């Protein structure tokens, strides 16, 4: 979800669609699960509500990464990258099956 917000502000449902697209439908978020996750990320200070640009957007609140959220995302991605590099080194077939 953090990754989905990294390219710019999104509203809740767009986050869900982005997550489903990126994971090829492996992860599906129902409305409850989605907003629960949003609430938790918000509480942890990783995302925040973007100030509504217009009255129309009042209905659909957008969220954006906070500074901390971006930092956490960067650290996480770096960690995944390291793991992936290591995995490729020891067992190439496992990561990129040919």
């Amino acid at each position, binding site marked *: 979800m953090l990754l989905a917000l990294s390219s710019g502000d999104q509203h809740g*449902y767009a986050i869900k669609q982005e997550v489903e697209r990126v994971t090829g439908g492996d992860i599906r978020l129902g409305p409850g699960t989605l907003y629960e996750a949003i*609430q938790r990320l918000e509480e942890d200070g990783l995302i925040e509500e973007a100030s509504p640009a217009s009255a129309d957007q009042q*209905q659909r609140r957008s969220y954006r990464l906070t500074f901390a959220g971006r930092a956490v995302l960067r650290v996480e991605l770096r960690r995944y990258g390291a793991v992936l590099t290591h995995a490729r080194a020891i067992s190439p077939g496992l990561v990129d099956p040919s």
Partner: protein
Amino acid sequence: MSARLWLYRLLMHAYPGPFRRRFESELESAFLAAQSEPRYARRGGGALFWADTLVDLCVSASRQRTRQVIAAIRYPRSSRNKVDTMLHDLRHAFRLVIRQPAFSAAAVLSLALGIGGSSLIYGLVDGLVLHPFPYPDPDRLVSVGVAFPRQSSELRFIETLSPAEYFDFKRMRSFGVTTAFDLGNRNVSGGDEPERLFTALLLDDPFEVIGMRATLGRGFLAEELAPNGPPVAIISHRIWQSRFAGDRQIVGRAIRIGGQAATVVGVMPPGLLLLGTDLWIPWGGDPSRMPRNVRQFTVLARLEGSGLAEANAELAAVAGRVDQEFRGQFREYEGWRLEARPWAAVVTASLRDAAFVLFGAVLFVLLIACANVGNLLLARAAAHQRDVAMRLALGAARWRVARELLTESLLLSLAGAAGGLLLAAGALAIAPQFLPQRVVSLAPDISLSGRVLAFGLALTVISAVVIGLVPVLRAWRTSPRVWLSTEGRSATGGRAVVRLRQAFIVAEVALAVALLTGAGLLARSFMRIQAVDLGFDPSNVLTMRLTLPREKYQGEAINQFFNAVLERIRALPGVERASAASQYPPMGAFETSFEVEGEEPGEARPNTLITVMTPDYFGTLGVALKGGRAFDARDTLRAPLVVSVNEAFADRYLRNEPFIGRRLRIGPPRPDRPWVEVVSVVADTRNRGATAPVAPEIFIPMEQQVMWNQVFLMVRARGDAPALLPLVRREILALDSEQPVYAINTLEGSLQSALFPQRVSLVLIGLFAAVALVLAAVGVYGVMSYGVATRTREIGIRMALGADAGAVVRLVVRQAIVVLSLGLALGLALAVSAGRALSTLLVDVTARDPATLASVSAVLAAVGLAAGYLPARRAVRVDPSAALRHD
């Protein structure tokens, strides 16, 4: 709005408030957007959509709720208010309880009696009837019973099947492992004193069936259970401790069983296994050589996969097949029936009725206690109504007031429960001392178990709600306007409250009547039993059983030994008479068929009890000779065979005089059976127990047979019979140091234990009825005096206007009479319909016994009127001038 959205909004209430409010509109739009996703457009997509939505909702909502609870515990600040309110309510309730010690004590005591009594009885029922065994998965452990309609319609389980019949159904699909065992007693010697052990002789391994493993050593091996296997034995934990002092080297050692060596291969864990047997040995013989109609095995089986119904269907099929095949040979198979029942139910069948009657009775007591406390609270609530009205008028929320009242009732219930559970724990701890040994051995650990505790707590909560509900409802409906106005001030608590309180009293009286009736019926039936002429004198007779091992005593040596024992016993100081017999009343266990000379032996040969006895048997028991001659030294093995019959036998089978000199052939038909001559008729004894009709019985002299190696010794003492036991034992050991006695009792004791269910029900129901009567009287008194207190003004006016004392008393008492007669009528109806449950415990008395019903009514009316009269007297003493000033 679409119906879907409406439904989703409704479902959203599963989320905690803050989350719902924060995300409501977004959840809705996400919900709506998800509907149009392509994967829901397919066939059946609607169902899939709702399934996804519901799963999502349930998962996330329960997670949210959990978070909320955790947060409330971790950060109490956020729920400070709630905790504060609760503490406040508690403090308030506590103050209310403390401020009125008499009221609170009465309420707590009532509830303690109700909850404690119920938990006690539940503990007994639970330990003895519902969960009597330590066996794993006891519900799947069944026994197979058999009924032969040609003999009796009763289904019997213990020692009722032959090995061939067992093999008929042993391989059924519904049964997993099975076992069949024959019960017997075996003398075990070596060690301090020879001992006779209750023994199960096994056809298959029983321990696998009941699901227990040896704590020491191992179970049986297949070859040990096969015919003529090696002599091995497994012993109980109890015997291991008592006889072998817990010696861990016992496994592998040989002990002597019936004079022969057998190797101990295992020790079982503590607890009751197989009807209290202490020694388990292979049956040993070749079961295929046993005739089909020698039935002495008890069968246990574990249900495999299927339920009881399937097993019984299979058993019915087996029974039908056997009927077809063997009916010609064994006529009893015609229409015979096999049925599996849970083993626990089989073993505790005799206690079940009494246990459930008691359980019902004790719940009545609890109901009465609840009604009483509810009543007291209602009276209090009426008194506080102005407080409540005032607080409501000042803006208190109704639910706050209601919560306070409910907290109070909960507090009272908890105090009552604490007292009650203490009471129950204490009573359960000492209960085994008051129960007969045979009952206690069924449930080695009766205690305040978790189940009993849970039951008690459930009762507590239920009673809290029951007693608290009514005052709460009253408070809810209180209208501040009425209660603050002048008409509210002097009102008698409102018509509805009075009605309600009267209804409570009516219910209480009705329940008390039902309990009193139950107690009365049991008492009457018990008196009938006690008054029954037993036909013999049971006082001061010591009995014990003596079984000579076949390996050691055979033929005439058996009677020689018994005679020598009797001679020595008769010589003891304090012994009046001594005799031996195969059985004694009320234990009519041994039966035989027979034919009377000159009578056509019809389709079914008649049956009679048969008792083998020494000549002094009638003298020892005090049984009168009604005609003919007593047995004496003439009647030896070589003399003509003679018998004595009881009057019931003479009346039923010999029919017409003269009875003396008639001849019988005893036993199943065989051409070489000798005729035996009736030489005397003796008075009837209650040979099937005090409550059953006298069965025909024949007596044969011990000296004229050599088979019977198992007898009861009966020793009539001049004084204290049990005191003779060590002396008697010493004499027997002097003759044979390996010979134990067992089943030691007094005749009175064995009669008493036969009446145990009746006795214990009578005592307990009597106790409950007494408590119920007191509670009901307190209730009537409470309502009446409250009525008088609130009508002081009215009474004062009446008296000022010239009403005399009699009129005032009548006014008050009339109310009591109405309540009492309603309660009485309801109670009698209840008693008669509930009385059917008692019928198994009643003897010679029906549930509608008019004398009992009348005396119960009289007692209750007297107590009730007395309780109503006291407040009436107080009303008469009202000073009119003071009453008129009364506010």
